[in-house]
């Protein structure tokens, strides 16, 4: 089952992304693309003529995708949560290196913002993991999922997680990493054709990665977990439709003074 899920992860993510595009269009009173649009895009990208800047850039981008896939797979297989978070960090670092490896200003700015965003959300993810650890006594995802729902004990951590989800799924108000109007997509700007596809699919995997954290809050009740994911997914899209993009510095401030402090409060509360 886990193996199958892992194999199908990009497809699963594709559905999520496709659904989200339709949802967003409807929220803006547009008709929007068909549900399967992400797959159309993928198939189209497959047979574009490929233009690259240099080989290193491409290799790093592809590596990013596969590492992310491994990360998502690791979640499905129920590995150690801390290790999963660090694997995810690894995949992002590879992406950042890819972004820096070309002499393109937007790619550089994007990579830089990617690093800053990482500085913002990584602590929160780790603190959430620590919260789970305090609850269930283990960092293993399988163990976390055997406990009853964690929502009651760590509500503030849940809110902190909610605050960083927009960074990960690149949604307003924290879509500074992609910021199409400013830096034309950031890191992905120099990719084209099939190699862009890897980055495009990596975005699907990011969805799975971050929403599975939400799922973990459900504990042993997968229905509650699924429900939480749905609610959060919906909420994130609503917020996306109600906010503008904030500056990177503002984002850092909000995450550090908001998300991290409430996570710490929650942790202290759990400990005492």
């Amino acid at each position, binding site marked *: 089952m886990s193996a199958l899920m892992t194999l199908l992860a990009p497809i699963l993510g594709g559905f999520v992304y496709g659904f989200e595009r339709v949802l*967003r269009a409807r*929220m*803006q*009173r*547009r008709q929007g693309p068909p549900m399967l649009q992400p797959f159309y895009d993928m198939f189209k990208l497959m047979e574009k003529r490929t233009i690259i800047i240099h080989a290193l850039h491409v290799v790093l981008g592809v590596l990013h995708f596969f590492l992310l896939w491994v990360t998502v797979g690791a979640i499905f297989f129920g590995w150690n949560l801390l290790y999963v978070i660090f694997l995810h960090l690894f995949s992002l670092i590879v992406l950042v290196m890819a972004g820096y490896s070309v002499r393109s*200003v937007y790619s*550089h*700015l994007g990579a830089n913002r990617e690093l800053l965003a990482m500085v913002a959300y990584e602590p929160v993810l780790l603190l959430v993991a620590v919260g789970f650890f305090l609850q269930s006594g283990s960092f293993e995802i399988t163990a976390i999922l055997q406990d009853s729902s964690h929502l009651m004990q760590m509500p503030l951590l849940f809110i902190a997680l909610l605050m960083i989800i927009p960074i990960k799924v690149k949604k*307003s*108000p924290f*879509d*500074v990493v992609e*910021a*199409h*109007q*400013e830096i*034309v997509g950031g890191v992905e700007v120099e990719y084209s054709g099939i190699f862009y596809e890897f980055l495009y699919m990596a975005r699907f995997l990011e969805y799975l990665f971050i929403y599975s954290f939400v799922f973990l809050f459900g504990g042993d009740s997968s229905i509650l977990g699924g429900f939480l994911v749905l609610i959060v997914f919906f909420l994130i899209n609503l917020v*996306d*439709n*109600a*906010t*503008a*993009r*904030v*500056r*990177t*510095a*503002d984002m850092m401030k909000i995450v550090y003074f908001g998300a991290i402090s409430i996570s710490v409060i929650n942790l202290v509360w759990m400990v005492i």
Partner: protein
Amino acid sequence: MKKVVNIPLGSQHISLLEPIRFQFTTENEKIIEVGADVGFVHRGIEKACSETFEWKKVGYVVARVCGLCAITHSLSYTLAVERLLGYEANERIKYLRMLMVELDRIHSHMLCLAHVSENAGFEAMFMQIMADRELVMDIQEAISGNRVQFDYIAIGGVNRDVTPELVNMIHKNLDELRPKIDDLMERFSNNWSLSLKYKGVGVLTLDEAYIYNALGPLARASGLKTDVRAESSDFPYEDVGYEMIFESSGDIYARNMVRLREIINSITMCENIIDNLPTGEIIEKVKGKPEGEVVVRVEAPRGELFYLVKGSRKNFLDRVRIKTPTFSAIPAMMEVFKGSEYADAPAILASFDPCMSCTAK
């Protein structure tokens, strides 16, 4: 220990509708120096107006200087030529022209607002404003037969009349639009993320506005009370309920508010115009050939549009000098960019509502 990065913005960039190139010299995304290249759209219209096209056709050519304020361009040119010919239009023509200019102002301002929200990363707002804007576009299409390039004003009058059904439609659409603008005004002032992005960002102070000769909504947002509609006697603006609108803070937010309130004012004016439309011919034959030198100022959506036309009884004019509002806005814009973040640059740029095709002609 800071190093500078040069960030290009344009000539092709997703946040730009038109080719303009900025070269921002930044420290950690903070802009310290700006270079601009505005000449991408230079087509040579001034020369063509006096050498390739006869004076009767020039109205259609200058309209193509800019698609957004086409109507004000052809209006200014027409006014200038009419004055050279010693002709003064009747009240109905004046009212119809005013109606079209104000409608154009509404749609231009709405586009600008949509663009500002888009460049601030607020896609939903962009979509909403663009959807609402279709109401005005429909009116314009119904009046002139085309959505953007109206070619409505001709020498000696206007090309089409307003029928009673049209009057009804205009009423209906404008009534629908007004609450939406009110709603927008509320959202622009109360949304948390927008106030982070707009308030106190890209400030043009009153002194700077004087020094750099800012004009239009830009100047009015800084508290500089200038508006050609109040400074020229070509049109009876006071009769249709015009009032000057200004703010004082001079940031993006103030510019947005000036635009929004001007839209409300324009809606009022349009309604007054169609309610009190005088009777008369819509086009009259004008005889003779232009002679002499004359200047005309008209308030375009972006500010003051200036035409100087010189003719000497020939088929071709001696000189058509066009000075567009954005042309004056660029020095002020460059000043405002300095010291702000690169992340804000697209929004600031859009809030100035630059029109490069106007600038470069």
